[in-house]
């Protein structure tokens, strides 16, 4: 409990960690989503018309 209380600073310490790790998680999700979407789009283009270069 003393650890969670952070010497009375828990209302500041834990939200700071929560925000930072949410940002880290969102960056992972966004990056994977961007790559997946780009791959899907590239595959779709290939199935429709092939490549021209």
């Amino acid at each position, binding site marked *: 409990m003393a650890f969670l209380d952070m010497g009375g*600073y828990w209302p500041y310490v834990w*939200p*700071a960690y929560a*925000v930072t790790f949410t940002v880290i998680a969102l960056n992972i999700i966004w*990056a994977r989503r961007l*790559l997946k979407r780009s791959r899907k789009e*590239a595959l779709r283009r*290939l199935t429709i018309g092939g490549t021209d270069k």
Partner: protein
Amino acid sequence: MAWTWFHRLASPPHVYRVAGRLTPWLAWPAALLIVAGLIGGLWLAPPDYQQGDGYRIIYVHAPSAWMSLFVYTTMAVAAGIGLIWRMKVAHAVAAASAPVGASFTFAALVTGSLWGKPMWGTYWQWDPRLTSELILLFLYLGYMGLRSAFDDVQRADRASAVLAVVGVVNVPIIHYSVVWWNSLHQPPSLMYLGKPTMPPSMYVPLLLMLLGFTLFYGAVLFVRLRGEVLSRERTASWIREAVRP
């Protein structure tokens, strides 16, 4: 011969392949370093003699603030290379970096506010460090907004690159704001006047977090860069090989 590696960086298929290979080599060390930094910062480091356990916010605030500056500098250098050498991959690096930098700038501002309330008695003060960091967030948002205002990728690349390069002047202003002006914000956390400001039990976890966050940026950048390259190289024949399921 010495510049071959640089010239190969201009090749989208080469960058796509190399980024894919390097991503796990950055992501796993980043995860290990961040976990080690967290254990060191939250459990092993002693409380500060003035700030008690409240100072432990530094282990997420300082790496986020570092990321906000490092990512912007990388973005501006890449944008500059893209402008000067017309290198599409460099513009892709800049575009892939912006959301990462913006999100960590947001984290730096929020965690800074959460530190400021118990230490300064206020969440926000129009102080040089805080204000210049907020301007950095607006620069990131402006860069992304400007890109999305153009349908043509090449025009978006050029216009946003100019903004990125001009905005880089804010980076040294943020860094030296605590030295140049009277500021509520404390001086640099790791080194000040050539000496460490903390004992090793406190600064080693911080170094681990700084390195971990930097490698994390590398890993996320490479994943985003592959997506950017794929969406830019719409008709190139190598894509068939690259995206084959």
